[in-house]
């Protein structure tokens, strides 16, 4: 079970700013461990953010994204109290979904 994300969403003047901090090793597959064996790739592949039920951001992540990725974006609309859901899936099929209320 993956660790929770920390999500903040704040609406101001009709624009909502979303900041997401994900907990993920984001292993590239290029590294070797101390005994010389390759460490298998393990990274997020897809991410989506929904405002209520509408997708406002959909992204493809790859091995070049850092460990514990941080993502910030803005979208038009959104009001205090709305639901914002962020979910990701990684290349091992693990996933995580967290939601917050827009403040």
């Amino acid at each position, binding site marked *: 079970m993956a660790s929770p994300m920390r999500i903040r969403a704040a609406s101001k003047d009709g624009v909502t700013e979303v900041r997401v*901090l994900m907990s993920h090793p984001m292993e590239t597959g290029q590294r070797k461990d101390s005994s010389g064996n390759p460490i298998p790739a393990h990274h997020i592949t897809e991410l989506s953010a929904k405002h209520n039920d509408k997708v406002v951001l959909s992204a493809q992540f790859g091995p070049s994204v850092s460990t514990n990725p941080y993502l910030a974006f803005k979208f038009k609309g959104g009001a205090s109290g709305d639901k914002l859901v962020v979910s990701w899936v990684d290349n091992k099929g693990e996933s995580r979904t967290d939601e917050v209320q827009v403040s």
Partner: protein
Amino acid sequence: MRQKTIAAVLGAASVLATATAVTAQDLNFDEYRQMLADGNPAELFEMEGEELWRTARGPKNATLEQCDLGLGPGVVEGAAAQMPRYFADTGKVQDLESRLMTCMETLQGIPSAEVINGKFRQGERGKIASLVAYVVTHSNGKPIAVDLSHPKMKEMYAMGEKAFFYRAGAMDFSCASCHGEDGKRIRATSLPNITTAKCAAEGWGSWPAYRVSNSQFWTMQHRLWDCFRQQRTAEPIFASDVTIALSVFMAGKGNGGQAVWPGVKR
């Protein structure tokens, strides 16, 4: 960034790429730190630490909610800013890590030896780091206020000062070799002059921190261990007197400065 790219292109085009002196501006990590502070991944450790604080664990199956960090049982708010401090119940000066070890041993029955003999970022020692992240976050922005009045604190401060200037190891280095003068740096990292109150506060008040380059969260014990390692001398025992003495020296020197916890580092 853009300016630098343009400058690099111009430099290459004119084939007159003169070795430019590194300016203080280029070495300024503060701007980068500000950009990162918003999404400091130390928060992930803090979340884990908060959960650990409230989870019943160990042979006694207890939480840490009754842990006394100096301001009374269970008081976390502002506690880290006043540590290290003298604790009458143990009769010792303790830093945050060693105090958490005491709480884990007395409340939860987890022997301190598991932490002391463990490895950084693993097992019980790793759990302590997460707990540290949780506790220090509740002192973020507070002034460092270490009470040096107790004789044991004075003793530790004096020992810390001595350790700070004590040269040892293959390089015959002391802490002061790198941290005793203004304007020193290692590669591109500016080194604080810990003999001044301002820089002592900057140093003490910016660890524990998340290191972006290796995606690791380091407590002050971990950071001090690394200083000894870089000094090429014997590595200190986790939470041993010398590490706490150095902490008392730094925190005491930095009294009044602001704690920015948890920090974020290159």
